[in-house]
């Protein structure tokens, strides 16, 4: 077996610490191994050099000692294909990320590089040509989360003619954007630019929207996911209901509305906001008197039922049950968005005791004309008009001690917008903004901030707010510093708006474990590569977009949604998918039929087969197997082996260190 | 007849002094040692550790002439060959012995083995030292070994050495020196070969008196009386190959390797390569893979066939090739069989079973 070892300098990334020439000489000493080095192995001349060596020296396997396989494994596999070799006869020794970049001692690093290369040679000697497996692609996409990102992705995919399903937890799609009054920097009315998208999505024949429902389980693999969606009972018949609104006018029960950020009421049967899509109400089983009475004693007829009486279309169905829908999908897009930081952990800002210390989202609802105060800025405590408002930046962002070390990117901009809208509503109101640094790094963002400061006279004070007191007459005394003038500042304000940061959706961990995609320590989903693949995840066929990947503003969310959609369209455009051939295979002569393998297989990809001599043995279902190798460690006689990482190869690698 | 001249009386400490002398001359002394209430023939550095009151050691003496694992060839990659962790130590040095690039074997003296084991080497010499195919490894070790046998005063109920013509608890066949413990601290030593001569160089010890000789006779008599088992191999064994009783007899056998390994005369081995060394190691014919061919075909797959083969090789094929049974009656296969199969009984049952067509 002729093996070619190609050691890369990676410019000076590798050769700065590792004596590449010594590695080449040591490797060339091994029997049947030809070694050479080149400055940039991944460059075109580098790859052509490999191809010519393969042809010239009739190599059987290629070892590339360069950077991490996660970067260029695919590139070099294609090089092997162009060189006429099976792509799986390639082994990569990672002597950059795990050797030259992390060690300083030159000869120890060189010696480690030789060990890594020798280990790769030992593995390559036992490599078998593998042929990817063709698998069909289900041409429909599942979008989890109905915010602007989810809607945009669904629109892009359906406009290309593929079936899409949006699953939204809330009674209506629209997500957090539906709560906003205006958007920066163009001051477009948020609902005005969102509702057309929502309507376009709902009217498109290719998009099916399941609201008030959750994804319970996702199995399968790229091209063949099968998802189980639970559509929770709305107790309202979707077809019959015309959305006339009589039921929620007549309903006697008043409850705090989550959509209004607990500033305004909603009824037990409610629609979160006027332009809801679908415009069909949901009965909140917890607070509805009928359901509460039914829970007390199930036999009774149940109280109230006013909505049922007044409904002209007779659409109320109290005995509606949750529906479970099982569907097959080719790809999954996760767009579960963000949730606001809970500012109660900050004792210095009143820890939620003062009603007039509101979060930015609450202030957004106050500004909104369809909000609880119809757009008038009234103090939640005594609903008097607030003339002096203090905005406090970085509440729940850039704060290591509260576990949110990152910057949420959007707070500076929405605070400036809110201050501007305050001055529009009440021209002679005065607005103060306590900030650390103004982050306005988008198109026309800086100009917008300039305009807010100059044209609208919003006073920016560089410093943090140290304490907020409640004085006798109900005003809020805000004490902070102004580092630019170097003085302590004390403002008596009618209301304080905290620019709360963006944290991850609480469902992220559960969803991530269900789909099998990783998340980082701030519980945002981890993208496949921070720079080069922000919309993909490590799991093939699963894509992420919007704030669930990291806090971002609407333009970025929409752009990333488009990116995710384009990846899905790329996937759907192929007739067949090439599946990694790294799969398990059973040597049925040795198998005892004890099925320890089936007991540990997470994908139950092993089933029984009866041989001629009536003995029952295990068989791997190629399409279900993901190649994790659990069955191999469980098998007492190692009758099952993993192509690409066989027992023999790993033992050879261990022996190669002797 | 034991000639007068070569016999003498010796006390226990003198015997120990002589053994200590052997170790001093850098000759390997192997003697029975007690370990977890079983006795093994092991290399001993000081004579105190030798065990005296034992019926027989677990592993037969063939273990030291034809070792369980022997490196035939070492094709190490130039670096010093990987550790040779064989049971018995080898002289370090790099000199090559005639058989291959292995260092030569050290001189060794085996003390305290029983007459049946000593005789087993005579039996093993035939297959290993035939004129046409001489096993050089065996030959080298056999020449460099001196056997000091200890006569059996109380044989076990599984022993049947007296069923063989030069067998018996006091037989001197095969050993260089035969010791008989005639008294508490008195040993009658008899030199039987020049190798034995070299060990007991100056026999300045007392000649045995007539009374000691008489004691020797009746010790020998009542030792032979203690043997209650006898071997009766049916003459028409070859025709009984198809007998049905083999099937029923082999039912309780679990096909492990004990009766093959611990038999004093079984000599089958396998050759394989491990870590740049060509090894020879024992392999029992009771394992399924013993007759596995490269095609994967196994000729003796059924347990009863493998069970039967052991009897036929010992009492039929070997007799045809070398003229004697491949057995010395040490009784280990009866003593250590986990399911207590007694081959003499099996032979008896097979003998009187009618010849089924």
């Amino acid at each position: 077996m002729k093996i070619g070892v190609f050691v890369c300098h990676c410019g000076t990334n590798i050769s700065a610490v590792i004596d590449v020439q010594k590695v080449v000489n040591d490797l060339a000493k091994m029997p049947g191994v030809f070694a050479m080095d080149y400055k940039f192995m991944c460059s075109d001349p580098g790859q052509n050099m490999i191809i010519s060596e393969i042809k010239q020296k009739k190599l059987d396997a290629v070892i590339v000692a360069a950077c991490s396989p996660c970067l260029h494994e695919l590139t070099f596999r294609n090089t092997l294909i162009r060189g006429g070799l099976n792509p799986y006869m390639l082994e990569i020794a990672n002597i950059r990320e795990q050797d030259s970049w992390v060690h300083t001692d030159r000869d120890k690093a060189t010696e480690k590089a030789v060990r890594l290369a020798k280990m790769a040679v030992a593995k390559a000697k036992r490599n078998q040509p593998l042929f990817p497996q063709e698998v069909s692609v289900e041409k429909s996409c599942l979008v989890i989360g109905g915010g602007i990102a989810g809607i945009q992705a669904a629109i892009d995919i359906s406009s290309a003619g593929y079936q899409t399903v949006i699953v939204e937890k809330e009674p209506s799609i629209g997500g957090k954007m539906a709560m906003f009054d205006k958007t920066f920097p163009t001051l477009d009315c948020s609902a005005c630019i969102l509702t057309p998208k929502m309507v376009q999505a709902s009217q498109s024949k290719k998009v099916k929207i399941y609201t008030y429902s959750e994804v319970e389980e996702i199995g399968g693999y790229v091209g063949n996911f099968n998802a189980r969606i639970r559509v929770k009972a709305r107790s309202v018949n979707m077809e019959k209901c015309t959305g006339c609104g009589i039921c929620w006018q007549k309903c006697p029960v008043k409850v705090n509305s989550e959509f209004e950020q607990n500033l305004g009421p909603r009824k037990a049967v409610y629609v979160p906001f006027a332009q809801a899509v679908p415009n069909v109400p949901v009965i909140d089983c917890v607070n509805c008197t009928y359901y509460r009475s039914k829970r007390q004693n199930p036999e009774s007829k149940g109280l109230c039922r006013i909505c049922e009486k007044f409904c002209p279309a007779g659409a109320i169905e109290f005995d509606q049950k949750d529906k479970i829908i099982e569907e097959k999908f080719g790809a999954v897009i996760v767009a579960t968005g963000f949730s606001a930081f809970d500012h109660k952990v900050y004792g210095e800002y009143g820890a939620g005791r003062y009603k007039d210390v509101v979060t930015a989202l609450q202030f957004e609802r106050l500004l909104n004309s369809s909000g609880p105060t119809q757009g008038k800025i009234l103090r939640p405590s005594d609903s008097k008009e607030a003339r002096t408002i203090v905005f406090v930046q970085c509440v729940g962002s850039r704060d290591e001690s509260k576990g949110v070390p990152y910057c949420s990117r959007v707070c500076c901009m929405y605070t400036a917008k809110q201050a501007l809208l305050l001055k529009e509503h009440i021209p002679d109101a005065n607005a103060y903004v306590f900030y650390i640094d103004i982050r306005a790094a988008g198109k026309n963002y800086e100009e917008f901030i300039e305009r807010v400061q100059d044209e609208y006279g919003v006073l920016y004070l560089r410093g943090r707010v140290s304490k907020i007191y409640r004085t006798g007459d109900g005003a809020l005394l805000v004490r902070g510093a102004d580092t630019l003038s170097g003085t302590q500042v004390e403002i008596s304000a009618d209301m304080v708006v905290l620019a709360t940061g963006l944290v991850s959706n609480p469902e992220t961990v559960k969803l991530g474990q269900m789909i099998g995609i990783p998340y980082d320590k701030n519980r945002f989903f981890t993208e496949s590569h921070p720079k080069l693949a922000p919309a993909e995840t490590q799991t093939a066929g699963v894509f992420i977009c919007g704030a669930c990947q990291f806090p971002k503003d609407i333009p970025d969310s929409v752009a990333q949604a488009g990116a995710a959609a384009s990846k899905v369209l790329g996937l759907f455009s192929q007739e067949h998918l090439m599946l990694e051939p790294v799969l398990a295979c059973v040597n049925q002569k040795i198998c005892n039929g004890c099925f320890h393998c089936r007991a540990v297989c997470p994908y139950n990809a092993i089933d029984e087969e009866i041989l001629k001599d009536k003995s029952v043995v295990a068989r791997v279902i190629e399409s279900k197997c993901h190649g994790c190798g659990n069955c191999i460690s469980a098998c007492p006689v190692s009758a099952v082996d993993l192509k690409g990482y066989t027992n023999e190869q790993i033992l050879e690698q261990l022996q190669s260190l002797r | 007849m034991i000639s007068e001249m070569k016999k003498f009386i010796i006390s226990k400490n003198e015997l120990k002094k002589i053994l200590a002398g052997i170790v001093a001359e850098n000759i390997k002394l192997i003697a029975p040692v007690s370990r977890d209430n079983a006795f093994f023939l092991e290399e001993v550095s000081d004579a105190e550790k030798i065990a005296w009151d034992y019926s027989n050691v677990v592993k037969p003496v063939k273990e030291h002439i034809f070792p369980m694992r022997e490196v035939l060839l070492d094709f190490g990659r130039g670096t010093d060959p990987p550790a040779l962790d064989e049971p018995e130590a080898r002289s370090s040095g790099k000199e090559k012995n005639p058989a291959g690039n292995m260092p030569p074997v050290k001189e060794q003296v085996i003390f305290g083995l029983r007459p049946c084991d000593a005789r087993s080497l005579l039996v093993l010499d035939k297959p290993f030292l035939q004129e046409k195919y001489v096993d050089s490894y065996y030959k080298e070790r056999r020449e460099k070994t001196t056997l000091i046998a200890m006569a059996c005063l109380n044989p076990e109920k599984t022993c049947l050495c007296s069923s063989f013509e030069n067998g018996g608890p006091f037989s001197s066949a095969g050993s260089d020196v035969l010791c008989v413990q005639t008294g508490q601290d008195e040993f009658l030593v008899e030199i039987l070969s020049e190798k034995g001569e070299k060990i007991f160089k100056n026999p300045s010890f007392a000649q045995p008196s007539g009374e000691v000789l008489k004691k020797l006779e009746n010790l020998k008599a009542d030792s032979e009386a203690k043997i209650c088992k006898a071997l009766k191999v049916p003459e028409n064994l070859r025709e009984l190959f198809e007998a049905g009783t083999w099937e029923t007899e082999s039912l309780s056998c679990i096909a492990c390797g004990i009766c093959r390994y611990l038999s004093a005369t079984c000599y089958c081995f396998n050759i394989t390569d491990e870590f740049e060394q060509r090894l020879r190691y024992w392999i029992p014919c009771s394992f399924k893979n013993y007759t596995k061919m490269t095609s994967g075909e196994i000729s003796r797959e059924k347990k009863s066939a493998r069970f039967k083969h052991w009897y036929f090789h010992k009492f039929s094929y070997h007799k045809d090739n070398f003229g004697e049974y491949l057995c010395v009656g040490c009784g280990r296969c009866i003593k250590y069989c986990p399911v207590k199969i007694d081959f003499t009984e099996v032979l008896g049952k097979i003998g009187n079973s009618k010849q089924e067509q």
Partner: protein
Amino acid sequence: MKELIDKAKELLKEKKVETVIGYREIRGCVVPAYVDSPCDADCLIFDKRCVYNLANYLKWFKNKNVALVLKGCDAKSINVWLQEFQIKRENIFIIGVECYGVMNEKSADAGLSDKCGHCEAHVPNIYDAVIKHQGDKKESVQGEPFKDIQEFEKLPHDERWDFWKKQFEKCIKCYACREICPMCYCKECIVERNIPQWIMSSPSVKGNFEWNMVRAFHLAGRCVECGECERACPVNIPLMKLNKKLIKEMKELFDYSAGQKEDVKSAIDDFYPEKDIKIDDKMIR
């Protein structure tokens, strides 16, 4: 033993089973017995000397229907066999025998073997018929079952290593421990694999260590502590010490003991994310 003989005769007469595997006494010692016809069922006995685990003979009676005379500890092996789909329950007729301890052949005074000291399966937990015990029913409970293991664990690690190294040096790779153990039913044992060679087949220190470690590991959560391997070992290696250590660990960490039920997943293949908290995090960084 009349009850046992009648039961065997009844089964053979009604042709419910082809053979009855039990114990028989010849020339003063007890050996396994195969009874095909009702008339020679009189030789069946059961007493303190019946140490063999007859479930082991199912390896050669896989799909024949057979009756087995099984003690409590032996019957647990049937549960593990069923758990691993090796036999069908209806093919086996289990004559359970109430047992209060069997002899330890290797100890000089032939007292009870130490597995019987803390035995809690006097009556088998899986049987089709039970034969009551005639003799005295003395409950011989000798203190804490894993006392010797705990003491051995307290020794410093190189002292432990020397102990085991000397034990494994004696091993002659006769594989009696494998052939006598009902749990070792593999068509081709991992020892006989040479591509890749997991275990050096020649009896060297390395080869013997690897063999004994793999054998013990394969019994984790499967060994029913019948003590046969230690009894069969010609060179007296304390194999049950290794197995008992694993039984102790499986009990402590996953409170699983082998052979209780046949429809449950073996503990080595199972996991409970929360309940595994007993694994102290010193083990895993």
